[in-house]
């Protein structure tokens, strides 16, 4: 991609970080800077404080139940056990909810990306009468909080016979005007030379989108996709309303409604919490670099 024109911002930010010169050295070799030491101590302390709730949940989940309320509380148990994890897995419902969440979130992510990319392309690269108006109307939707329209959405889903189905959970979540705005601003920044060159070769809109725009948009697609996925996975109110059948429940709803019926057993609850948190934690650990670089390129930094 060696051209004279400036590439879109993301490629810029990314290449600067990966191949550019190493970050400026903080200290000269052999000299210990007290400021830097304090900085690192503060950073590590803050991170540890931030991790306490998660670590405490894990510590509790491997204690025998009798030890969870033993005062004074101890971080480490003398007899760690995985029995609570085994029990949660054997009960099966949590794995079922994880599977449901996976299906729903994948549906939402794929549909959201397709719809928003197409719309953003239309707004950014095509000219048609009424475009400004249509765009303003779509963006205005950012101001309508999805939580307040759950009442009529539920009535609509009842009429469409989609209550207690994956589609019923997923469909209302794919309307994200914010993502259209983000994609459009990104597409606007792609230099026209690129599409003009493709057009000279006889490419139509579909080929320009597939061969020019999308390859340049990978980082931002990854970032938006990850946020769409996290959002769908953790959505609570809508799935709470549209699902009553425990077999179709997503993780947050299942944990909140069914698990609380099992009484106050701290160690098993924490084991369930840890398992319920795992899938997205893994996704995050795999993609964490894309999240930051994607956001940096998305131009949602202001």
């Amino acid at each position, binding site marked *: 991609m060696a051209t004279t024109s400036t590439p879109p911002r993301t490629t810029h930010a990314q290449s600067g970080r990966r191949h550019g010169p190493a970050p400026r050295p903080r200290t000269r070799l052999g000299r210990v800077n007290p400021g830097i030491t304090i900085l690192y101590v503060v*950073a590590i302390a803050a991170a540890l404080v931030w991790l306490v709730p998660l670590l405490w949940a894990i510590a509790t989940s491997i204690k025998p139940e009798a030890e969870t309320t033993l005062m004074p509380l101890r971080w480490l148990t003398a007899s760690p056990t995985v029995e609570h994890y085994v029990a949660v897995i054997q009960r099966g419902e949590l794995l079922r909810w994880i599977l449901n969440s996976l299906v729903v979130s994948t549906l939402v992510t794929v549909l959201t990306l397709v719809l928003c990319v197409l719309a953003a392309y239309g707004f950014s690269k095509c000219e048609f009468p009424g475009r400004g108006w249509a765009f303003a109307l779509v963006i205005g939707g950012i101001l309508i909080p999805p939580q*307040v329209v759950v009442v009529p959405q539920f009535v609509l889903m009842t009429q469409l016979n989609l209550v207690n189905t994956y589609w019923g959970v997923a469909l209302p979540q794919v309307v994200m005007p914010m993502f259209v705005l983000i994609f459009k601003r990104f597409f606007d920044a792609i230099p026209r030379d690129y599409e003009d060159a493709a057009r000279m070769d006889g490419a139509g809109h579909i080929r320009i989108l597939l061969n020019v725009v999308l390859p340049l948009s990978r980082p931002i697609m990854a970032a938006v996709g990850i946020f769409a996925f996290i959002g769908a996975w953790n959505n609570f109110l809508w799935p709470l309303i549209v699902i009553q059948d425990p077999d179709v429940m997503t993780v*947050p709803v299942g944990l909140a409604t069914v698990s609380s019926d099992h009484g106050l057993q701290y160690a098993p609850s924490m084991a369930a919490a840890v398992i319920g948190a795992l899938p997205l934690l893994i996704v995050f650990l795999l993609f964490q670099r894309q999240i930051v670089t994607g956001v940096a390129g998305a131009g949602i930094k202001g």
Partner: protein
Amino acid sequence: MTTLSKLSNRSNKHRGRASAGDVRESGRWAGPWFILPFVAFYVLFLIWPSLAMLGYSFTDRSLAGGPVSWVGIENWVEALGDPYMWRSLWITLLFTLLSVPPLVALGAALAILTDHARRLGWFLRMAFFAPFVLPVAVMTMIWTWLYQPGFGLINQYLQMMGLQEVEWLGNEGTVLIAIVIATVWWTVGFNFVLYLAALQGIPRETYEAAGIDGAGAWRKIRHITIPQLKRTTGLVTVLQVIASLRIFDQAYLMGGDFGGPNFASRTFIHYIYETGFVNFRLGLGSAMAWVLTITMVLVSVLLFRFFTRDGR
């Protein structure tokens, strides 16, 4: 809105100049086809429900079914005269006032810290962002356990420091604060990432120049970093206010079905949910939902005004 349309105008103008006199051979009607799928979903799942909700608010529609009849402005009169609705609106606003400052300031502080402690980058990003990916029910289970009176970790540490034990979630005066603390822990990671991305955009040369002039780390942060982050702060604040006004999930799960002791953590969306889906009064719930929408549009417009005047 002002900011958003300004942003799009700017890019439109730019493009308009570049493409002046250019007639697309692929046809004027390609654009509508590209936006059509999104618009179809948008109308079906957002616009139509909003309008339908306005219609419902003038009827006695019930979730239990039964004949629906027109009741005029009865629901609106009942909603606006309901002290519990106002109380839940106040609780929502209070939550917003309490949660936005720490969420914005801490997001910036943690990002600056991470940006400077480069060698710990991976570890710090994980620590501060990981809570954001927890499902809300997981987060509330963990925090309810931490807040537990008697054998909760937080109360144990309070007692070790010689302080009184606090019944965090069982007390009218502390329940909302407890929810704010848990929320800050849970969602600050999002703002943190936005700030981190913005920090990457500050040219390194600026710092180097300041370094040659003898500026220390603290002065660099005060005189370069924070001013450069001004626009990000505007954006993060607006997004955060909108997000905080939508508080429901964690308050509902931590405060319980009744919204905490003496309804002290019953948020507006909780009250709408209760009216519509627990008491089956969809008409009344719709009127209340419109009250919230109008409140949010007003607050958003005010904020956009404030930040567009301030930022340029």
